[in-house]
């Protein structure tokens, strides 16, 4: 565990807690952490329409959880950080103190559990990443940039097509003795290959195991190309619930693949750790609006700038309760509208 400086003092008898929020493309994660890095409580939700709605829904659930557990009432949230693809929007809405990329957040969280980690594989709903660490710092990373092949959404879709719940997907793959070969280069090929094999009478188990193999191959070629994947390897993100994929990775890499306890919450946990360190360093008053943020109304409006031929679409988030105060605005290519004044 990371040591904590003595600057952290508990006021009015309440202990400090830190909130990390990770709003991704498919789901949103909230982690409440104490100063020692222990997870107090967490929330995991599917996204609801917009990041603002997701953030509010998550906050409401977090509030309910805290009220339900008397222990948690002794904590006060000192700092809040956001990550994920909607980090700036979320930061503006909940009043975050820090926004960092999910790559850093994942690396920090994994390092807090496995300090000697050298490779992090992360496959989420829409994107996949690989992070290479050496001597405790990130030396290389890659994200899928052009193609969502081999991510959670694709597996979800295929599970629905085969008529099995996604939760059982991994068990099917593990039962297979002879995985069939499925094209791994592109999900379009993979899908037509699967349909063909299905109609030819192969068992579901073998097809699913073949699919897991092809997904891993795709990941290695697209995201992990040219990188040295050394042990220890940590695998996280939603897809790491899938035992079939874990086995396929182990076969492919020829080493053990560790799945951490909070495999889907790693981004949010990393953010909580990052804000704790930020708080220890700066000790600043938080901008966090509190858990009541779920009751505040936010309105987004868009307009076209029209000052140059680009005619950028500017998005702004307003708070109607405070005379339409603009809390965030972006979308201009030249950066003109980014300042709020």
């Amino acid at each position, binding site marked *: 565990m990371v040591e904590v400086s003595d600057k952290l003092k508990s006021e009015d008898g309440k202990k400090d807690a830190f909130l990390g929020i990770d709003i991704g493309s498919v789901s949103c994660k909230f982690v409440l952490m104490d100063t020692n890095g222990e997870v107090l409580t967490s929330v995991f939700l599917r996204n609801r329409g917009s990041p603002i709605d997701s953030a509010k829904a998550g906050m409401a659930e977090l509030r309910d959880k805290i009220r339900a557990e008397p222990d948690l009432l002794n904590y006060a949230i000192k700092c809040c950080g956001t990550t994920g693809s909607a980090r700036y929007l979320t930061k503006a809405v909940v009043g975050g103190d820090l926004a960092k990329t999910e790559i*850093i957040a994942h690396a920090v969280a994994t390092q807090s559990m496995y300090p000697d980690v050298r490779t992090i594989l992360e496959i989420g709903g829409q994107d996949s990443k690989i992070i290479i660490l050496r001597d405790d710092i990130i030396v290389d990373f890659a994200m899928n940039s052009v193609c969502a092949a081999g991510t959670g959404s694709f597996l979800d879709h295929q599970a629905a097509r085969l008529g099995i719940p996604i939760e059982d997907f991994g068990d099917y793959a593990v039962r297979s003795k002879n995985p069939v070969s499925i094209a791994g280069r592109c999900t379009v090929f993979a899908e037509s290959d699967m349909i063909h094999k299905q109609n030819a009478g192969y068992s579901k188990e073998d097809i699913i195991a073949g699919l897991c193999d092809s997904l891993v191959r795709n990941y290695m070629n697209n995201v992990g190309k040219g990188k040295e994947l050394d042990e220890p390897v940590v695998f996280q993100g939603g897809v790491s619930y899938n035992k079939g994929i874990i086995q396929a990775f182990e076969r492919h890499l020829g080493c053990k693949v560790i799945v951490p306890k909070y495999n889907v919450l790693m981004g949010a946990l990393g953010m909580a750790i990052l804000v704790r360190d930020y708080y220890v360093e700066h000790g600043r008053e938080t901008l966090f609006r509190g858990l009541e943020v779920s009751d505040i109304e936010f309105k987004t409006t868009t307009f076209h700038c029209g000052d140059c031929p680009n005619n950028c679409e500017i998005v702004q988030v307003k708070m109607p309760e405070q005379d339409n105060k603009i809390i965030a605005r972006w979308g201009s290519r030249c950066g003109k509208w980014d300042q709020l004044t």
Partner: protein
Amino acid sequence: MLISFPNMGPNWVAFKTLFTALDLDVVVPDPTNREAIKIGVKYSPEFVCFPFKATLGDFVNAIEKGADTLVMAIDCGPCRFGFYASVQERILRDMGYKDIRVIPLDQADLLEFHWVKTLQEVSGRKDLFIYSKYIKAVIYFLKKAKLLNDIQTAEGLFRAYEHNLGDTTRVVNELLEKLDKANTLVELRNFKKVIKNDFNSIDIDKSKTPLRVGLSGEIHISLEPYVNLDLRRKLGEMGVEVHQSLSLYDWVVHKFHLNYHRKWLEHLAKPYVPMDIGGECVWVLGEYIDKAKAGFDGFIHSYPFTCMPEVTARTIITNKLKKIYDLPIIYFSFDEQSGQEGFRTRLEAFYDLMEARREREIKSTPEFMANGQKKIYPQYGGEFYNEIAQLIQAE
């Protein structure tokens, strides 16, 4: 007759002077924008590289503004760029612009003087008396291109130090206007001082020690801010010094066989790629080695999606050079997509990566910034670079 040419960042200033010095009328296309890209993408072959689409969009925009003669650079291979002009002319004809001429400007080897033919064709005169004008045009073009290169050098350094975000961008835009209006040799000769003075008026924080990043890649993508999502400005505003020797001037001088910096880069890259295979492959490899040896914090390689020579460079760097020189590198392949989120995430993560490395370096070598003096990295750009670097030195 109205002449036009495609956009390539601020280089319209130089192209414009090439034709106005011949007493021709010039129309400059609007800065590349969403509308132009939309048109370019609509009428181009789907799988062609992105600069083709962007420049086609610029041409359509210029035609709508009244241009009837378009000048496009060509090359005799080795990549698809060699055929841009002829294919674009056909596409424009098919689109219904029947009397548009696309005049190729052969820049395969400028010492073969094929470009004189282009100037003859554009000006419509072949007599000997016009030659004095050609000389004037070329001198103005080279001088302005050099000054644009200087502005780019200064911009890359100053933006990392500015107090108020956007000051450097404003100064650069004003300088481009001023340079466009400077049309006598005296003014051009004194223009360096103007650049220095204007940049010196920016309120900068000299105590900073920003990260240093080298930038290279395909020339159109690297120079056109709309296409590369304003990479240079974004890096600068994150507080990163941007060192980019690639510019129009750099390229033209290279084609006159006088660019010794590129010769040096070719020498560095020789063990990996022994000859020019198109794009900027050889020089990207050279730059990477050069910057790694100079102790830079990172390197950014930008290129159009599916660009064969640049992908070759990328593969050689990941599989060979990175293991030898250990300079962090990030690749951006640009296409028509304008979603900035993934781009920003990777850029920010790359910044954090470089910062963590820098911190470790400071910890392991306490003398890294011991006497408060920043190390100036020697860079091609000669005297002017050194003068600019002195302006940002801590007192």
